[in-house]
């Protein structure tokens, strides 16, 4: 038996626990914790697992709706899509591990989110990723980008879940702290949903999957700390992913879930055995007893501390019905996976762990989950806003050559084609992808029905930096607009809220504002938040990233034959702008790329207008009236038009546009990012029908041009050859690598 070290003041601190928290632990236990127990409290009460700084704000988010089967609180959220089916989805961050080891960090992020989905009984059908890197001047950016993309590809391709979309942004605020947010969606029969519960005292607790090694011990605590010089030394905690084993685990679990052998199941993610057992018990008002000698191990001499906190990947915890142990075993053996009954459900609400017959952990399950600390941390409006909000466009000269600016924008890594990334992802496996990456949203069909699921992930972190409330809102409405443009009715979102150190009042203020903005937009759009993830401490040496609340949204296409794409189809079609342009440049990609300024006030969002525009677009698509739809986002109307001209898979289409407005400066008109705008194209015959729908919905409506020729012409402002624009846009990312 290995002797545990004694608890010292220093040890408590290095476990990230405050004095108050430690006293609280003593009170709960009625004694001093031992070393293993200290480790357990430390991870379960870490920011990452307990949401102690964010909980009070997250309560604001709308989480309910007629179609919502499962909101936040489980491994993933669930939405009813009819036909007896439901979609299950969730997003997770793997920022810190990916910065330390980009390939494995990103890969294990994918592995983790996949488990969150199939643990609920759903077969994972599609993944997305949202990536944020530093600027290309930074020496590590290329290395990190290469590694992260390869890691996502390595894991997702191997396991055979298509990665059908995502986003990738570059900004110096991520130089020392990249973001890797990964999303997976699965489909499940409504009456075969499984949860992370541990009902029924006496029921066996079964460990399945890979053996336990010393991987990632204290990963959860690490995710709750900022980087400093000594982070380098923590490196060995990074785990290696084994997508092959996960594939076996996935198939074995889904095979198991066809039967009625089990009560509950949960993956072992952050804080491994500790988190899964205490959450399952606490959700069910029961306890769990574990005998560590039964835990399959990869290495010799592992201590209870290490076994309980290991974050070895590709493992699951199952509570089976008593008497069905053998049945469960058979299935996992068939798939060549380790399986071991390691304990039982008890009725005394305790997590009790034995090693060599001796009790080494004895903690009330709820103390680790429900009774974790909750903080109302101080908030304060950041000083920098005084400066950024003072910005006026009158201080920058209006450029003369707009053609040149359009090209520069198309070459900005934030706007340039991302095919270098998504080409590395198998985005077709499972033969469901009916709209491939490269349009506003991606769509998978739901085999056996006529329906499709549209997915997108969006966040505008520059807006969030300049006004987190509007930025949060903008991220939601952009996601929704992307779905609508593909012909989908938005259903629900999951989020990944990436912020700096919550102990700083300015960061807490940003967080509060962003969550309020998201909440407001979600309420108005009736897209509840069915799950999410908070990642704080995204700082390096005191420098926080831009606040980055990533929004992943799922929508339903009722008839996949009526899905829509963003590119122009036929010469002679009319081009219509739904929505209205204003003189708004604050926070735009144009200001940042061309003038090097990241200031100003982000564009206003009028939710009534937003809904009017979106409803019009969706109704028009559902009635088969329009032939393309594309939302205006970074780079404004000029970039959106260019993309509609050249992003089609078969051919380019030119366009002639007239949008002169006396009151708005040329650069604002072309590159301003006013919200609630969608560019559609349609057959001339359909114009009246579209007008009627726009009128009914109160959507601003203007015919701005016609498809034809091989040039992008915006009268008096821009005149470019489409093919050369396309080449610049397509090659820009690769050129920088």
């Amino acid at each position, binding site marked *: 038996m290995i002797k545990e070290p004694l608890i010292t003041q220093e040890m408590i601190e290095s476990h990230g626990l405050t004095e108050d928290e430690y006293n609280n632990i003593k009170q709960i236990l009625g004694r001093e914790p031992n070393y293993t127990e200290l480790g357990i409290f430390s991870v379960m009460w870490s920011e990452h697992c307990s949401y102690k700084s964010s909980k009070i704000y997250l309560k604001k988010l709308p989480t309910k709706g007629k179609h919502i089967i499962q909101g936040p609180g489980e491994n993933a959220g669930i939405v009813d899509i009819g036909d007896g089916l439901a979609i299950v989805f969730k997003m997770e961050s793997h920022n810190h591990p990916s910065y330390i080891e980009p390939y494995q960090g990103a890969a294990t992020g994918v592995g983790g989110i996949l488990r969150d989905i199939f643990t609920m009984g759903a077969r994972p059908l599609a993944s997305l990723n949202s990536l944020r890197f530093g600027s290309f001047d930074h020496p590590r950016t290329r290395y990190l980008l290469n590694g992260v993309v390869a890691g996502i590809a390595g894991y997702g391709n191997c396991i055979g879940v298509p990665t059908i979309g995502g986003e990738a942004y570059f900004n110096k605020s991520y130089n020392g702290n990249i973001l890797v947010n990964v999303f997976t969606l699965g489909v499940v029969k409504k009456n075969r949903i499984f949860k992370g519960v541990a009902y029924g005292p006496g029921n066996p607790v079964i460990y399945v999957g890979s053996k336990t090694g010393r991987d990632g011990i204290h990963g959860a605590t690490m995710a709750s700390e900022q980087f400093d010089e000594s982070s380098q030394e923590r490196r060995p905690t990074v785990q290696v992913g084994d997508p092959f084993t996960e594939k076996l685990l996935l198939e074995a679990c889904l095979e198991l879930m066809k039967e009625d052998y089990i009560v509950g199941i949960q993956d072992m993610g952050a804080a491994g055995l500790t988190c899964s057992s205490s959450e399952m018990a606490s959700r069910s008002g029961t306890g769990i007893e574990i005998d560590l000698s039964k835990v399959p191990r*990869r290495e010799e001499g592992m201590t209870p501390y290490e076994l309980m906190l290991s974050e070895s*990947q590709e493992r699951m915890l199952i509570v089976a019905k008593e008497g069905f142990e053998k049945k469960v075993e058979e299935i996992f053996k068939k798939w060549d996976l380790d399986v071991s009954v390691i304990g039982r459900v008890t009725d005394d609400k305790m997590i009790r762990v034995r090693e060599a017959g001796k009790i080494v952990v004895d903690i009330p399950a709820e103390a680790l989950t429900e009774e974790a600390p909750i903080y109302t941390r101080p908030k304060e409006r950041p000083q920098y806003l005084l400066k950024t909000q003072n910005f006026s466009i009158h201080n920058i000269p209006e450029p003369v050559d707009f053609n040149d600016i359009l090209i520069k924008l198309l070459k900005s890594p934030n706007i340039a084609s991302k095919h270098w990334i998504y080409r590395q992802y198998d985005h077709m496996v499972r033969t469901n992808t009916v709209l491939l990456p490269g349009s506003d949203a991606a769509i998978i069909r739901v085999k056996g029905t006529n329906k499709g699921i549209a997915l997108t992930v969006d966040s505008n972190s520059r807006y969030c930096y300049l006004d987190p409330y509007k930025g949060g809102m903008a991220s939601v409405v952009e996601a929704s607009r992307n779905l609508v443009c593909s012909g989908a009715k938005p259903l629900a979102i999951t989020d990944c809220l990436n912020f700096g150190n919550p102990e700083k009042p300015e960061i807490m203020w940003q967080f509060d504002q962003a969550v309020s903005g998201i909440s407001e937009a979600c309420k108005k759009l009736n897209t509840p938040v069915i799950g999410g993830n908070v990642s704080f401490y995204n700082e390096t040496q005191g420098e926080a990233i831009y606040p980055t609340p990533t929004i992943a949204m799922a929508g339903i296409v009722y008839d996949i034959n009526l899905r829509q794409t963003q590119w122009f189809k036929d010469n002679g079609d009319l081009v219509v702008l739904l929505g209205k342009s204003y003189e708004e440049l604050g926070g735009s990609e144009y200001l940042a790329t061309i003038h090097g300024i990241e200031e100003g006030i982000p564009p206003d969002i009028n939710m009534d207008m937003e809904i009017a525009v979106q409803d019009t677009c969706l109704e028009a698509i559902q009635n088969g009236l329009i032939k393309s739809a594309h939302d205006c986002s970074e780079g404004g109307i000029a970039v959106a038009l260019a993309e509609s001209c050249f992003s089609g898979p078969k051919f380019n289409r030119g366009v002639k546009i007239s949008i002169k407005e006396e009151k708005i400066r040329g650069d604002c008109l072309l590159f301003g990012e006013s919200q609630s705008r969608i560019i559609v194209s349609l057959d001339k015959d359909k114009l009246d029908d579209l007008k009627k729908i726009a009128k009914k919905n109160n959507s601003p409506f203007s015919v701005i041009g016609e498809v034809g020729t091989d040039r992008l012409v915006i009268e008096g402002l821009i005149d470019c050859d489409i093919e050369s624009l396309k080449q610049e846009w397509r090659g820009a990312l690769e050129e920088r690598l």
Partner: protein
Amino acid sequence: MLAKIYVTLKKGVLDPQGKAVQYSLESLGYNEVKDIRLGKYMEVRLDDVHGDKAEARIKEMCEKLLANPVIEDYRFEITSEDM
């Protein structure tokens, strides 16, 4: 000069490849195999550098590029022999 570089996974780091190969060898009846770890082997041929200088350069290359210090260890030998 020829440098022979061996890159191996750090102790304790999971080796999914090794695990799969071992499983396969076992199922082929090679039960004597107790453990197998996969690594990389590189032969780097150098021009115009020798002795300590060569040694220092190779060490640098390993640390910067050839090995991933987060999960891998490396060692090398420098010989004058041909590949």
